[in-house]
């Protein structure tokens, strides 16, 4: 099976506000800024619904959404911070990618004195880290 390619990375704060979105391949759809904000907020709600309707307690919410042409993988930390990625179909180390993205956020956003928590991430070194993650995922096999 071909390997899944990373299409886009999204970071959503605990209130459902989009704080980062980046398309990483040419075949990622072009979305305007408002569409991105709305989609992030809708995903935030869907994710919350999935936790609420689960018949068990402590459900972590939707972890992946499989579609015909792409897959979406999501991770939410206990802080409410959510990261999701879209990938083309194929085998993928999605949890590794999510974890590396989370780690990059901890390093290059949270340790940057110019970054304000919950606000959009505009940090050059974070962009570089995301580009590195995308390169390592997309240049595999």
């Amino acid at each position: 099976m071909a390997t899944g390619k990373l299409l886009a990375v999204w970071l959503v704060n605990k209130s459902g506000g989009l704080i980062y979105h980046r398309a990483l391949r040419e075949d990622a759809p072009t979305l305007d800024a408002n569409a991105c904000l709305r989609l992030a907020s809708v995903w935030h709600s869907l994710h919350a619904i999935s936790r609420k309707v689960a018949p068990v307690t402590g459900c972590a919410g939707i972890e992946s959404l499989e579609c015909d042409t792409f897959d979406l993988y999501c991770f939410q930390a206990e802080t409410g911070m959510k990261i999701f990625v879209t990938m083309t179909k194929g085998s993928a180390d999605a949890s590794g990618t999510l974890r590396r993205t989370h780690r990059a956020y901890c390093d290059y956003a949270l340790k940057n004195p110019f970054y304000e928590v919950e606000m959009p991430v505009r940090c050059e070194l974070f962009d570089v880290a995301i580009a590195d993650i995308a390169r390592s995922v997309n240049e595999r096999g």
Partner: protein
Amino acid sequence: MPAAASRTALGAACWTATEKVNAELFALTHGAFVRQILRDHEDDVECANAALERVGRAMGARMVEEFLSRTNASGGACATFEEAMEMTTRVGLKMFLNVDAKTRDWSEERDECVIEMESNPLAEFVELPGKYGDLSYCNALCGAIRGALETVRVRTTCAFESDPLRGEGERFAIRVKLLELVPEEYPFDD
């Protein structure tokens, strides 16, 4: 493995895995920060204590994200105050400060305890002059614990139970009291 031992092992593993920096640089930078805060508050110790708490709280709020990413804790990993305290004490303090610590003096209701620390890198090289007798020099640490916990919806109060810099006891000990486990907010609850 009993829970306490497995948390200690997790703390040690996280400490081993993390990138490190000279504790002297850390202690002296913190010391310079404390002196600056005292100057800016014209040696008003109460105000300085509050300012240090705020600094720590902001640090804790950011720290907890990394704590979660390194421990892979998710989905109600700390469902109780007791679990949250054990993770803070045995994993958090070890992972960030290389401090061995344990909880003691639990209240009957399990909503209050004391964190006892074997060492405290913030207090190295420090002797407080008499006029700063009421300064809680390491108050950022209380702030960090409170900030980290409240970011994962555990509201507490944190204060030094004993502070050797103030001539209290041999070891640093922090009393943490639970105020509220804040329920998670959902976008559709109004």
